[in-house]
């Protein structure tokens, strides 16, 4: 396996760690002092309704915002101290709405993922090209390599961006509502792909999802936020309980067992 083979073996078990990290905007606290650990090799999903602070948390992790108090650590090192390129080698981020890419083909987009390894002047070797090809194959876009990203459908576009994250070979990927623009079948397809990558490559995934059932199905760990505070976290089976769900979403949700797998499924009674 060439993908992800290049990274050095990790010395710690936590990818990200928040030490009393908080975020305030002009005396308005959006995220209260928070202590969470994101484990390596695990799919962690952030839950909560709009404005609960999960996007802010993602922005702290991806360094788009700086914590107003406390610290955000990446493998025991404060994220703010890392150089942009070094950070990119560890963490890749897919924004909720990937930017519009005028005149860029799928292959060119995926090649951008090699930038942190090669910089502005480094030569792309056969290894880089292989990695790009592999990443495109992983997301199933082999037949679309030379198509322009702007001409793809929403689902294909999202997969092209995921391929770029893969070519980046970082240990952790951050996905902010990756399914928000997709229909149900593409949602399932994308999450299944991410789960597969996590299991086959040991990729650490941290994402925001709105659909509690999808989150429970594809994650190892769920973290629920409410008004800027973590109110519950644990394995999906610990979160999928009537009282916990009521706390998270502020409304009554009922559960039934999935007819085949037996996992709890939530619904509005």
């Amino acid at each position, binding site marked *: 396996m060439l993908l992800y083979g290049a990274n050095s073996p990790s010395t710690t078990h936590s990818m990200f760690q928040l030490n009393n990290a908080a975020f305030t905007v002009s005396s308005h606290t959006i995220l209260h002092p928070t202590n969470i650990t994101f484990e390596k090799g695990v799919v962690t999903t952030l839950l909560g309704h709009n404005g609960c602070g999960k996007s802010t948390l993602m922005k702290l992790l991806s*360094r788009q915002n700086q914590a107003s108090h406390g610290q955000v650590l990446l493998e025991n090192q404060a994220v703010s101290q890392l150089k*942009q390129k070094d950070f990119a080698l560890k963490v*890749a981020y897919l*924004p909720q709405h990937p*930017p519009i*890419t*005028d005149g*860029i083909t799928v292959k060119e987009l995926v090649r951008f993922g090699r930038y942190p390894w090669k910089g502005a002047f480094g030569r792309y070797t056969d290894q880089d090209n292989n990695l790009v090809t592999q990443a495109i194959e992983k997301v199933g876009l082999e037949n679309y390599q030379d198509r322009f990203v*702007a*001409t793809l459908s929403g689902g294909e576009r999202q997969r092209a961006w995921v391929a770029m994250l893969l070519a980046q070979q970082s240990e952790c990927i951050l996905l902010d509502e990756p399914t928000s623009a997709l229909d149900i079948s593409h949602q399932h397809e994308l999450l299944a792909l991410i789960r597969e990558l996590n299991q086959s490559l040991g990729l650490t995934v941290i994402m925001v999802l709105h659909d509690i059932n999808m989150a429970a199905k594809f994650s190892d760990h769920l973290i629920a936020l409410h008004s800027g505070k973590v109110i519950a976290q644990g394995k999906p089976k610990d979160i999928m309980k009537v009282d916990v769900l009521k706390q998270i979403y502020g409304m009554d949700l009922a559960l039934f067992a999935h007819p085949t797998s037996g996992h709890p499924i939530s619904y509005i009674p």
Partner: protein
Amino acid sequence: MNNTFRLSLTFGLVASALLISVLIHLTVPYSGGWTLIQRTLFAYDTSNYQELIVHMTYLPRLTIALICGFSLAIAGCVMQFVLRNPIAAPTTLGVASGAQLGMVAGVLFLPAGLALPSFIPAFLGAAFSSLLVFWIAAKKGFAPIHLVLSGMVISLFIGAINTMLMLVYERYLSSVFIWGAGALNQNSWESVHRLLPLLCVPLAGLFLMQRPLSALILGDSVSNTIGVNVKRIKLIALTLVIFVTAVVVSEVGIIGFIGIVAPGITRLLGVRHLNAQILISGMIGALMLLLADQLTQPISAATGDLLPTGAMTALLGAPFLLWLLNRQTWPSQLRATEDTVPDWRHRRFIPLFITLLIVLVLTSLAALWVGKDPQGWNLLINENIVNLRLPRILGALFAGVGLAIAGTLVQRLTNNPMASPEVLGISSGAALTLVICALLGLSINRYEQIMLGTLGALAVTGVIWWLGKKHRFAPAQLLLTGIALSAGLDAIMRIVMSSGQEDVSSLLTWLSGSTYLVSYQDAAILGVGVMIFGTMAILLHRWLDLIALGEVSANSVGLNSLMVRRVLILLIAALTTLCTAIIGPLTFIGLLAPHMARSLSQNTAKKQLITACLLGALVMVIADWVGRVLWFPWQFPAGLLSSLLGGAYFLYLMRK
């Protein structure tokens, strides 16, 4: 909006009102002060020549300032409201320069016997340019920055046409210079009598429309559902605004910034309702123009030159606009609102490259050998002719390359296909230093000229840098800062040009991008500089690809956006400065060449850069040659011609 701030602003207004009354006291003719005005107003005695002068020149001038300030501010206010764009104004959207074109065309082409009031051609010109601007901007859904940029481009384009007409019909149009800069001097009440009815009607119309207009704030789709015919309302309002602007322009010329700044102050004061906004903007505008005029009069009197007031408003308004822009935060990521499925195609790079290279070489050789003499066309291959023509051809060629690279960088950096080096104000800075030197009577040779131009361009780059720091050189901020700067500099330049000094008017050809002063040494300097910076740009092509993804995604793959933006700004400044210093500030190559490269399907940064270089060089060489033979034995400056060619092609391209 905090209270202390509002208080200090109100205090500022009261203070400026006091200042105005003091200034009036000082500027009344014959040092008569307020007493003379009082006498003239309440006990007018026609036999007293002092009162006569006050009555016939001073008071009409005050009145004109009040009326024009009031009208322009209201026009700006309504325009900003309708277009939901805080920096829309008659001047930023090209309305004013269109009106100027209408006037010029009217003077030149209408039969002299036809006693047509001057506001009619002005209105037609203004309507024409506004239509062009809206026509271009409509494709992008009237996104604020896009609209202002298209206004800027159209202004530059129409400005080029104006300059061209002035060069050709120099004798007929010398008065247009002064008029074009907004001179408020009066010698009777005639102008006031003409303006009042023409302005009262549309202004009253705007006031009457305020209720359906206010509904526009809900957005087009919602307003439609509550029974407001959005399109019609917008159309009527904008037509009235354009009419008001045209009337003012036809009477006193272009007076910039009142239309942007007065509504801006009104909003800062916390005025919410449209009705109040319109009225208060109008009053602030009237005060502003009066203040500017009062400040102009003593300077005018001291220097003995006719100093246009419009220039003074630019001096006061430009810094204020920059400050206003700096207070507001703009989205750092510009997202196009286009929904159409783009038609992307692949085109092989190598064959295109070779074709363009061959065409460029052939064209350059043709430009070198083919010319015109009094007997007609000729083909000359002799050393003397080559020594005459080669430097200018090389100058045009390298300038084309340099500007094409600078343009590609600007467009990639700001993620906006309408941006160009000219828009950032760097070339205006270079032009302004030279014009000021000429005004001060310093006769400078070619090398001092290049050095001074470089200094001016560097100064503007410094200002852009300093203002951009706060917003981490965010693309939108950068563009707006540049637009405000170049508008301000242009206005100051117009003051100086209007002084009518010999040295200054001789700069006109340089200002319109002439190549015939270029020596071998100039071409060599330009060539080496363009080679160095151009190579750097091409080597950094990965940055250029990534930066277009927007800050978030670019950072995510490890690009240090802040550092990259800094380096790119420096490269753009260096290239623009070089080209401007040698061939003058006016060309559209920076806008045009990157576009043409894209329309030839060269989308990745490296291919776009190289294709744009060849195209830029090609257009400049052709423009230089055409300028040489078209109007033989006179010459059109290559920059001016390329602006015309480029502007026309650009219009076509933007709507294709």
